[in-house]
């Protein structure tokens, strides 16, 4: 048990943000003990909820001066433990910083605070016929600040790219409490290095973004959503390659395996997937209405050539919404099947998908584990999800070993250990699979530029054998 935060520090925090926004009560702190990766849990000393850039700067400066670790937190939906608290640290949450500051429809940019929920931005932009493109599955709760930290993706990143493509400027509170502004729309001619791009995806290790400027896109005129039904994952994988090789650029190509289909269809998120299908592809085209049917026809032909038993089209908005809801809530639906779910995340070259999927199935069978696949097939971004019960130590051990094998497999075929969920605490141990010591040391040096004292989101991203994170199971 850590020494509680000194009263004078609590008072100083109260003075900055108001006592209602400093959480020290142990019962309330439990809410913050983990993010979406619940296998790691740590109770922080306190949680502070500032409302402005100035308040964040004052809080961070105070804690920095006291030598207290700071862990930034958005909505806590992250899946790699990036927002896992430090036992001797304070969590700085952005929940109150939820204002959209400006929507400049003429220039198609928005300025907002980091606590704005991803989907709320699109709702606010709708009257201008604009929207925000990156759409992580958690978009109804995750925040833009978290998206910036994780460089979040989503199904439609196949066509539209990830968060980094849309962030044009940032106001950042550095770990020292200093406030800096990076980038800014209309200012590219200054010849600055792309520091916005460096900050996006830094997983809360370089500072807290307190104001974010993003690009918006025009709402597309039309959309076509296809559901391809296959007997095997391998056949579905071949269809993906065929669609891409055909020169089509779908907005999204998602794959769902039988285990996931059964979980989703048995849940409140049922989307109309046939439960006896070996695999299903959700393929979507968007853009100008004219021409979409032709694209959809070509994609359908690719599916049939790859052995699809059936290709359906969502002809009504409600059907499309049901399919997407089923896809995006699949992780939630799996909660019915097993007490615990490890949502994995890795990317492989798209052409290796059929082979990798077959080998993941083999790994699951060998370790006697239930593996459910639901992922962004068009990007080669896999999410093999392992269902388990953490109270079974033998099964937990098999989960860890299978996970590592899957990661090694993805790297072996030319892929990487995380496509969109980040490294956080979860994948620090895998970093050496994809990076050499020279690259890791360069990343450490870059981290020191922003955080020389190493107290900002400590123990994340970079491997640090001196203080390995402790999974809850290990301490239980």
């Amino acid at each position: 048990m850590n020494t509680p935060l000194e009263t004078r520090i609590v008072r100083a925090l109260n003075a900055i943000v108001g006592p209602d926004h400093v959480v020290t009560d142990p019962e309330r702190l439990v809410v913050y003990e983990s993010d979406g990766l619940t296998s790691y849990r740590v109770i922080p000393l306190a949680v502070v909820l500032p409302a402005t850039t100035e308040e964040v700067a004052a809080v961070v400066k105070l804690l920095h001066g006291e030598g207290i670790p700071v862990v930034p937190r958005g909505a806590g939906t992250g899946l790699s433990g990036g927002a896992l608290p430090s036992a001797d640290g304070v969590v700085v949450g952005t929940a109150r910083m939820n204002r959209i500051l400006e929507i400049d429809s003429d220039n198609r940019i928005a300025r907002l605070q980091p606590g704005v929920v991803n989907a709320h931005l699109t709702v606010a932009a709708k009257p201008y016929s604009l929207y925000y493109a990156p759409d992580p599955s958690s978009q109804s709760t995750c925040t833009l600040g978290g998206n910036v930290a994780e460089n979040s993706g989503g199904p439609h990143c196949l066509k539209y790219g990830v968060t980094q493509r849309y962030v044009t400027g940032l106001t950042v509170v550095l770990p020292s409490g200093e406030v800096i502004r990076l980038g800014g729309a209309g200012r590219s001619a200054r010849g600055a290095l792309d520091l916005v791009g460096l900050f996006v995806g830094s997983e809360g290790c370089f500072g807290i973004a307190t104001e974010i400027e993003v690009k918006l896109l025009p709402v597309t005129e039309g959309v076509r959503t296809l559901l391809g039904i296959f007997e095997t994952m391998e056949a579905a994988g071949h269809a993906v390659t065929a669609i891409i090789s055909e020169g089509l650029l779908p907005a999204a190509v998602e794959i769902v395996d039988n285990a996931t289909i059964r979980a989703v269809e048995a849940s409140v998120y049922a989307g109309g997937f046939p439960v006896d299908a070996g695999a299903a592809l959700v393929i979507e085209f968007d853009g100008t209405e004219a021409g979409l049917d032709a694209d959809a026809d070509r994609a359908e032909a690719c599916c049939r050539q790859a052995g699809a038993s059936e290709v359906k089209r969502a002809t009504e908005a409600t059907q499309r919404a049901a399919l997407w809801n089923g896809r995006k809530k699949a992780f939630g639906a799996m909660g019915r099947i097993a007490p615990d779910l490890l949502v994995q995340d890795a990317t492989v070259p798209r052409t290796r998908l059929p082979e990798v999927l077959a080998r993941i199935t083999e790994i699951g069978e060998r370790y006697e584990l239930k593996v459910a696949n639901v992922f962004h097939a068009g990007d080669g971004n896999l999410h093999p999800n392992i269902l388990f019960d953490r109270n079974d130590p033998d099964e937990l051990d098999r989960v860890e070993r299978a996970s590592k094998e899957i990661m090694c497999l993805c790297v072996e075929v030319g892929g990487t250990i995380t496509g969109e969920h980040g490294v956080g605490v979860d994948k620090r141990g895998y970093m050496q699979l994809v990076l050499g010591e020279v690259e890791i040391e360069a990343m450490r040096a870059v981290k020191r530029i922003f955080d020389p004292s190493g107290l900002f989101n400590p123990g994340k991203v970079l491997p640090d054998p001196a203080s390995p994170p402790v999974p809850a199971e290990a301490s239980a």
Partner: protein
Amino acid sequence: MSVVTSLGDVLPAEALSGAEGGALARVARGAEAVVRPRSPEEVVDAVRWASANGVGVLPVGTGGRTTPARGDGPFMVLAMDRLSGLEIYEPADVTLTAKAGTPLADIEATLAEHRQWLPFDPPQVSSRTLGGLVATGESGPVATAYGELRNHVLGATVVCGDGRVLRLGGRVVKNVAGFDLLRPLVGSRGRLGVVTSVCLRAFPVPAKDRVLLLRSDDFAGLEAAARAVRTAPTLPASVVLWVRPTSQGAALLVRLHGAELTVDADQATLERRAGVSFARADSELVAEVRDDATDAPVVVTLSVLPSRLFEALGAARDLLGHSSVVADAYSGTARIALAEVDTDTVRALRDTIEEMGGALAVEAPDEGPEVRAAGSRPSDAETGVSTRLQEVFDPSGVFWPCRA
């Protein structure tokens, strides 16, 4: 020539040669040597040697877009043209990895066989090298529809100032394993290191690439049309304003990519919104406009929010007179070609553009450094972080010829 002699100790003699003609000769002016490595190992040797001997390094693709060495002191030109060739290209992955000195024309030809392309169209794109493209970070106006170059560089191998070799990113389209050191590398113009290999995402060639043209002397009319196009519900591939000097008028070029049905519909939408009828133009005009306003003694580049572009160009015309202008109306950037310029005029325009929230840069190889220095600067905070980043990549400052 003592430098060249001692360089011969670490590099095979055939890796050394004099500067041969054209752009390379221009940037090699004043250099102690031009080194043309044939392998990444020779790049490492050359950079290590330079670092140990207090010689600066100016990496060069073709030299066509390289700013000559800034500052004083002995330096070598590291010409990357012999480090050329595709490394990995799996068409169905729609990604490719090639050595940095590979001409983009070669890559374009290979991709075209599989109906793929790189959606980047900066000036003289086909005569650039892959490494040169990444060093300048220039995407060109089709970034409107496809996103910027920095979003499509999936991986790179870079030789740092002390000879360390960093393998950054990978060859998959989504990758968040560790901090993204690739992003500041793209567009760093040699300030951080020498890129020896690059992995890029490619795209399928659109079925139709239609070029719409609106010629006019009426600037206000063109502004209204440009606004109608850039705020339309359909996203064009690019929207470019082309202003000719003196009496030759101006034009708006809009490219539409997609299936024939799609571009027909998009054209109708844009014409309805803008209240105009576009003529058709061909890809030759696109290339002419793309390359215009680059080969001039002075090129002023400015950036503003797109809504302020025409206002900024009006201010530029008032101060600089009539000149060739090529502007990306979707992003709000423009380049202006000039025969000459004086520092006070640049400063006055810079102040005006900065008041609009924009920025301005000047390339004027034949003018003194004060002209270039009159352009906009990153903030002190950004400069501080950038300097520290340079120290991480290049601790001994061997790439000083690339820095302001």
